[in-house]
């Protein structure tokens, strides 16, 4: 049984300019002890999707889903107090900005022991012992001393380690890491990733890694979901994705990796992710796609077959070439 099942999750925001669909019918199935990655540019709705799962979106957001199930429990009908027993405990999350994600007014120890007290009902002595153990586990030197430190006294990398310690404090079955290394120095990035992978292996938890960095994906994930403008455009095991991308967006993302480039100019994807007011009528990627035809601009595509990675494209790529491509355009 999958640990997490999501089918057709949509999130819309009530804004001054009308309704805005940030996440559009995405599906996600995650098995226990699996590492899954969600990739996409900024603004593609990756974070919004997981925040919706955790019930952390503001009231302006409307979340709908056909199936939203964690460990057999239906999250669409669950009450808020019931959900709060799950999140932070069985399903935990770490965020992008370690410096602002910790409360500046409270010590590391206070913020770390809070979950232990609330979810596990530990007494003070147990809390302290466990907190030190956790800080050791995430590789923080002199853990006893760090308990009384405030977040602004630690570096960004240290704070992210504290965040990880808080997240794993109740031995979660699912850990969601939302761009955990984006705000950190390159050298620290690798350390934090290694730490996450080590903990994942030791604890046997599932890990969802949200990132925009294809390099990170290649190093860590087993399966990859590619997201663009709120839609899931492709999903594949990591090897297949890097070898044979089926969606033009995935191909373009891979082509813009420096280590895969063999031309003198690094290719980039022209344009930006469409926002609320400039959503194209047809395929959302059509304004930036090399292969776009009139059909693409007029009619939104449907998800393709599994052998094409469910690619959301009229002409999914096979071995780098679009299939069923109209002859007159190619000529």
């Amino acid at each position, binding site marked *: 049984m999958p640990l997490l099942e999501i089918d057709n999750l949509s999130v819309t925001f009530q804004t001054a300019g009308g309704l805005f669909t940030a996440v559009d019918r995405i599906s996600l199935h995650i098995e226990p002890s699996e590492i899954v990655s969600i990739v996409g540019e900024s603004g593609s709705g990756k974070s919004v999707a997981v925040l919706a799962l*955790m019930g*952390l979106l503001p009231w302006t957001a409307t979340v709908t889903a056909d199936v939203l199930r964690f460990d057999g429990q239906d999250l669409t009908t669950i009450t808020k*107090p019931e959900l*709060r*027993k*799950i*999140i*932070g*405990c069985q399903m*935990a*999350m770490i*965020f992008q*900005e370690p410096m*602002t*994600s*910790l*409360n*500046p*007014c*409270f010590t590391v120890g206070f913020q770390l022991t*809070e*979950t232990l007290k*609330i*979810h596990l009902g530990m007494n003070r002595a147990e809390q302290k012992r466990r907190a030190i153990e956790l800080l050791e586990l995430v590789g923080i030197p002199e853990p006893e001393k760090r308990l009384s430190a*405030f977040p*602004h*006294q630690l570096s960004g990398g240290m704070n992210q380690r504290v*965040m990880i310690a*808080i997240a794993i404090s109740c031995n979660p079955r699912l850990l969601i890491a939302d761009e955990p290394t984006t705000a950190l120095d390159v050298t620290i990035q690798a350390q934090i990733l290694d730490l996450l992978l080590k903990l994942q292996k030791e604890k046997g938890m599932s890990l969802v890694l949200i990132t925009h960095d294809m390099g990170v994906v290649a190093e860590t994930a087993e399966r990859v979901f590619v997201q663009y403008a709120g839609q899931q455009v492709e999903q594949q095991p990591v090897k297949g994705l890097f070898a044979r991308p089926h969606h033009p967006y995935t191909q373009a993302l891979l082509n813009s990796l420096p280590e895969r480039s063999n031309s003198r100019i690094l290719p980039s994807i022209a344009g930006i992710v469409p926002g609320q007011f400039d959503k194209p009528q047809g395929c959302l990627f059509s304004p930036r796609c090399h292969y776009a035809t009139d059909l693409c601009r007029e009619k939104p595509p449907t998800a393709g077959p599994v052998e094409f990675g469910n690619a959301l494209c009229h002409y999914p790529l096979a071995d780098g070439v679009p299939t069923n491509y109209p002859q007159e355009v190619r000529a």
Partner: protein
Amino acid sequence: MFVYFLRKLIVILPTFFGVTLVAFVFIRTLPGDPVMLMAGERGMSPERHAELMAEMGFDKPIIVQYGLYLKQLAGGDFGTSIITKQPVLKEFATLFPATIELSICAMIIAIFFGLPAGMIAATRRGSVFDHTVMTSALTGYSMPIFWWGLLLIIFFSGILGWTPVSGRVSLLYYFETVTGFMLIDSFLSGQEGAFISAMSHLILPSIVLGTIPLAVIARQTRSAMLEVLSEDYVRTARAKGLGPMRVIGVHALRNAMIPVITVIGLQVGVLFAGAILTETIFSWPGIGKWMVDSIFRRDYPAVQGGLLLIAAIVMIVNLVVDLLYGLINPQIRHTD
């Protein structure tokens, strides 16, 4: 923390000397002869005038005069009232408890209602409650409190007859002044009804004086809370599975209090300004009424001394608020 305190103190010292300079200059810019103003004697002989001139040091160079004034102040001499012939400091000390009692009650009302109103309004942004609180707060902030006091007197004293119009306690009761705080003294006296009487005298002036601080605190709490609620660490707290009471009451409130404390501190000056009006309307025998009366009686030594003492008190309170600010905000506490 100690260094932080010292730094604050060093910034305040020149301001304090500036304030003494203002008080010093005040007497000398008044139209008319300073000796006449200070002595308050009419039709004195030229010899007496010259004698007083020398006694008060008005014949010396202005710098020396200022030096003498500072020396006087250092010795605790804040001048002598022309009208009562009492030392200004003594008069001030007798009347000050009345103003403190009134200000504390006003501040309690303001904080007790302002903080929760602002917090709830922020958490229910855009709701009917939010709109009601914000409209009331802006109305309170725009209130001419001298008129507000008169209205309350018309309604509660005139029409309903619930509260007395003026004073601190009914004349039926007489008891020794122990602390100067009427609520405490009346309670200590053990006389039946004395405490209730003091209470009923205090309630309207406190509401009037607390109106503007209440409005300011409610508005500031709401906006600080709104800002904090959108911070990443509040999302983290919610992601830990904490309940809304704990997220708002512990994680958000502690951070939102930092700007609110500053604003509460700044209200002390506002309270003194408001006390001038409130005490005048309710004939409350405190510092504010005394200052206004002194100005009207042309009791300039009293005005000079009172001005200096009030400014000093406001500055000290602001210093204390700064310290409190340092205590609640760890980012300041650890920068030394």
